[in-house]
């Protein structure tokens, strides 16, 4: 037994062993635990912020789909005898000056808001990805041209531009509004994506792919785009928010077609009929609340994405409530100390006692 080599059992080949200290390169100094796969897959959905945001969005999506069917009244039906009625059982959110049912207008109008918001968001994000990533990846003259283009769109005040364009186009349908908002709203995302692509382009794994002779589209699609997922997602959410706000603004100032209901149209009529002066809060408050709720849910999703993409936050379940409960303040340079393991080393017991205290 005195021979130290006898530790190795006969089946151990020296090759497997000599490399032992180096085998787990990725494991080395970053001891961050790798949670079980099942736990990691739906982590985005475990985040309270994203759950709340997604639930609100889901609620509005359902309303957008079924709204026109479940609306109790025709939103356009004028009923002079029921002018400016406050909320009641027959009119849940009261009526307008012309006796139109506000609740029905709100339900019918949700579809317009969601369709325009998400379509404009998708188109603008696609534009941003195409222009931003190619500008960042191609570099040189192509980059100059594309960057100049996005800079121009960045400095143009977009709302006046949208108003002018929309006012010029005959019969401004949803589609026109979508296109106008998308065309004026892509530049910010393109700029962010370009910077990130510039940084990614010089990283070793991209250089390695290039040296391997991979085709350009493959490098972009397989090496670069997956690294941009989070930025693309948050760009999308931001553009949707901007699109919803732009659309509602357009409707509110009366530039968009007033025959299509959306929350902005409700606000337009409320404003032009002096609902505020007449104390008809039920006319403008619900629409305003819906806008605020939708905006909040989009912001919450963005926070959720933020926490999800930061691997440090992701792997630790760095969740404000847990940290508060355990009195942990994570900081670099001052590792938090919780004296949970008692002198006996009995972890569970110590934890339980801490809970009781």
């Amino acid at each position, binding site marked *: 037994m005195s021979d*130290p080599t006898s530790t*190795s059992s006969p089946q151990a080949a020296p090759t497997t062993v000599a490399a032992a200290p180096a085998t787990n390169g990725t494991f080395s100094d970053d001891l961050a635990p790798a949670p079980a796969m099942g736990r990691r897959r739906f982590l985005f959905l475990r985040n309270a912020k994203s759950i709340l945001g997604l639930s609100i969005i889901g609620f509005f999506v359902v309303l957008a789909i079924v709204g026109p069917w479940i609306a109790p009244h025709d939103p356009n039906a004028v009923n002079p005898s029921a002018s400016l009625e406050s909320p009641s059982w027959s009119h849940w959110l009261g009526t307008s000056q012309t006796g139109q049912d506000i609740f029905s207008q709100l339900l019918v109008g949700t579809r317009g808001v969601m369709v325009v918001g998400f379509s404009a968001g998708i188109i603008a994000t696609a534009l941003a990805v195409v222009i931003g990533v190619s500008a960042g990846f191609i570099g040189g003259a192509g980059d100059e041209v594309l960057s100049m283009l996005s800079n121009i769109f960045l400095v143009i005040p977009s709302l006046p531009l949208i108003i002018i364009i929309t006012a010029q186009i005959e019969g401004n349908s949803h589609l026109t509004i979508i296109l106008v908002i998308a065309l004026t709203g892509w530049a910010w995302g393109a700029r962010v994506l370009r910077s990130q692509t510039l940084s990614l382009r010089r990283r070793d794994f991209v250089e390695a792919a290039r040296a391997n002779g991979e085709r350009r589209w493959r490098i972009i699609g397989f090496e670069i785009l997956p690294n941009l997922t989070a930025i693309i997602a948050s760009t999308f959410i931001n553009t949707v928010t901007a699109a919803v706000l732009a659309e509602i603004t357009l409707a509110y100032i009366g530039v968009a077609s007033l025959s299509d209901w959306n929350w902005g149209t409700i606000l337009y009529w409320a404003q032009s009929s002096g609902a505020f002066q007449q104390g008809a809060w039920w006319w403008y408050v619900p629409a305003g609340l819906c806008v605020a709720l939708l905006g909040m849910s989009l912001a919450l999703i963005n926070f959720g994405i933020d926490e999800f993409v930061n691997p440090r936050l992701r792997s*630790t379940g760095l969740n404000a409530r847990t940290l508060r409960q355990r009195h942990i303040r994570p900081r670099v340079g001052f590792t938090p100390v919780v004296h949970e393991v008692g002198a006996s080393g009995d972890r569970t017991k110590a934890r339980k006692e801490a809970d009781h205290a």
Partner: protein
Amino acid sequence: MPESVLTGASDETILDIRDLHVDYGYDERPTHVLRGVDLTVRRGEVLGLAGESGCGKSTLAYAATRLLPPPGLITGGEVWITGADDEKRDWLRLTDTQLRHARWSDVAVVFQGAMNSLNPVHRIGRQLTDAIRAHRPHTSAAERHERGIELLELVGIDPDRIRAYPHELSGGMRQRVMIAMALALEPRLLIMDEPTTALDVVMQRQILEQIADLRARLGFSVVFITHDVSLLIEIADRIAIMYAGEIVESGPARSLYHHPRHPYTAGLLSSFPPLHGPRRDLGGIPGSPPDLAALPAGCPFAPRCAWADDHCRTDHPHATKLDDGARDVACWKPLTR
């Protein structure tokens, strides 16, 4: 290196880590990366900390100095460090201000790849003396410059280079500047985390000799972290071997090298060829390092150990003193001499 280097060490402890527990992750299912580590470093002693990648060597050093970045969390234990004023303090109970005062003057750390931490736009001298300015604000610029030159001479760099920028120095020189910087406030304890890993063998040798020489002259203690056990045999007085977040064996360097008592130590030592003495077969350790998130119930090394029996697989061994207290081994069936 002869055993006589041990004479540099006294009985006074500089660093005393007791039952240190560290988790990674703040949620309900953290990974326990350090599970009750005890370690002492005496004054003037060089303690080598060795083990496979991911066994918790660096975590131990950073947790003891409270430098572990999130998601690191110290869940229990005590870390007593003797300061410059001979006062013993539990670093896990220090306030932020106390911690800031104690760092660098009581304990200095040379980080892994530290030579890349030099700011490229400032001269070496300014960066060398920055800590002095922060800790002793009453010193004059001339005094600090004087000290900077002294420090450079200490690590064998021409004092002219005090006006050099980091890019004008070689990797080895920059590493030595970092060591000089760590010594700026004459700490009693120097923690070196793989200080020579990025350097070639010749430079490694020079730096090791430099450290040994400085230790002999200035009398500080060193915790030397490496995965290269052969290095430790050269420089360390005592060696502690870590496995899966525990210290499985610790003892005087030479006796540990010649007579390992823990099967893991024996495996580690037989993983590289001896440069001197009789040839021996290269063995090693079968299997791969354990997953710290899913450790076996008994001895963590049992699945890879040739001597493991049912007892090893069910009961966790605790460190016991062997060889008249000179050796600590956490094994149910330590190897005999």
